[in-house]
């Protein structure tokens, strides 16, 4: 098994781990962190799979995609954190209610 493939598998593992945490944890900060772990997993897959043939220089295009992805993830995280603070200010808890509207 070549190392690139191993990295890609780890990426998929991170993605799954993040998905699990996103579903299981109620606290919004944990949910936001979980989304970030999932994103890192996807980025790892992209970077790892850029090495198509062993020994050859890796394809730069996925790296450019990851940079774009990181920019998107940072902005999304900032918005999520700001919203989390607003949720806490409005409801007193940094969690989402089970039933949003009665």
């Amino acid at each position, binding site marked *: 098994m070549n190392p690139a493939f191993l990295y890609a598998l780890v990426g*998929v593992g991170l*993605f799954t781990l993040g*998905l699990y945490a*996103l579903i299981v944890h109620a606290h*919004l900060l944990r*949910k936001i962190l979980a*989304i970030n772990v*999932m*994103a890192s*997993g*996807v980025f790892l*897959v*992209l970077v790892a*799979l850029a090495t*198509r043939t062993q020994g050859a220089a890796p*394809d730069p*295009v*996925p790296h450019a*995609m990851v940079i*774009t*992805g990181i920019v*998107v993830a940072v*902005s*999304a995280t900032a*918005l*999520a954190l700001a*919203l*989390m603070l*607003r*949720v806490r200010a*409005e*409801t007193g808890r940094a969690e*989402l*209610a089970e039933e*949003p*509207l009665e």
Partner: protein
Amino acid sequence: MSDIHWPVIVILLPLAGGVACFLWPRRSVLLGLLTALGVVACVAGLGGQVVEQGAQRYAVGGWGAPLGIDLYADGLSLLMLTVTAVVGLGISVYSSGYFERARYGQDRARHFWPVWLFLWTALNALFLSADIFNLYVTLELLGLAAVALVALAGGADAVSGAMRYLLVSLLGSLFYLLGVALLYHSFGSVDIAILAQRVEPSPAVWAAMGLMIVGLLLKTALFPLHFWLPSVHASAPAPVSALLSALVVKASFYILLRLWLEVFPFANAALAQLLGLLGAAAVFWGGFQALRQTRLKMLIAYSTVAQLGYLFLAFPLASITGWTGALYMLLSHAAAKTAMFMAAGNILYFGGHDRIADLDRVVQRLPLTITAFALAGISIMGLPPSGGFIAKWLLLETAIRSAQWWWGGVLILGGLLSAAWVFKVVGYAFTRSEVPHEARAVPATMEWTALLMAVLAILLGLFAPWLLALLEIGSPFGRENAG
């Protein structure tokens, strides 16, 4: 005319307008309305170009596909751009009344315009994207802008709704992006046209297809992934609810449609049947839940769940007429649902609540608004001559021709469910309520835009041949691959 770079202008103009609204908040209403008119004119310009010269491919900055970003405009993207422009103009005019004098302060209006124009930019860029990675970026931009708009209403419901929406939206995008990664690895390109030539079934492609479809279904809120939609669409300010229901959920459907037809043409029939079944379940569940609601905006939001279900009935039918039917449904739903949310916004603005049982003879006080609601209801039910009727007719015709009549049954029963809740609301609008309530004059612009959008939904039925001809420009519905 032909040397004007319309595709870029259509994206840059709302972006510039949004920045201008952000820089000069005092003038934001004027700037916003001017930008909206400008975008409509530019989409018309692009439309003229596409109709005259066929599908357009445009390399931004002259870089070209592997390194640069390509824009692509064919009949399908033009149709989506046009519906966005028309609905967008309506919503801009409506918002100029809604945010100015509503219980929202000046502050909210200031935040509305830049974010709304950014959302418009993201929509236009999405419909013009030629590669699946650019689609991911625009999908994220769209999601972030939409979340910010939902949070604009303030209060616990809206902020929690926005947070839920953000998490769902990011989750959907990540599934999609993982699919993009697998496709790029397999075929070395993210360009839709190149992928369409190179793609062949393999385990990696099946995985990519599964991931992308799940991500997009989550964003399109197809039953049973619709759980987030009703509360989000109901808690947002009225013009934002209209935007979300009419345009934002349709954007992910558009991506799904393009991928399905061009990149995954080998998807098997069982998957198509499954999507159709989920669509049918959405029609029944959404319609049934709509009937049970006591709040008007919540009711309209559940009806969106039902209407989105119809779009997926085209997958098992898999023919050009079926797809056209689904797209026609998308158009007429966009117009009708905008009108409905605007009408609900007027009622909320007028009486300060949207409890259906206490509508208290709104019909006498807001005759235009109730007319708008009823006309939009006609299109949602699918009665002639509305756009909704043409859409259902096309779908029904395909269902019978391809010997799958049961999908036709779904269409008819779904129509009956819609009729039931439309008449329920209209009935309460005529009856006197026990609870007296405050009343505030609604600006004429808000009443008239609601009515005009509803009339548009009805008139769409008459424009059918012209709009259907538009779809035949370029792939995926071009004459060359008709069959």
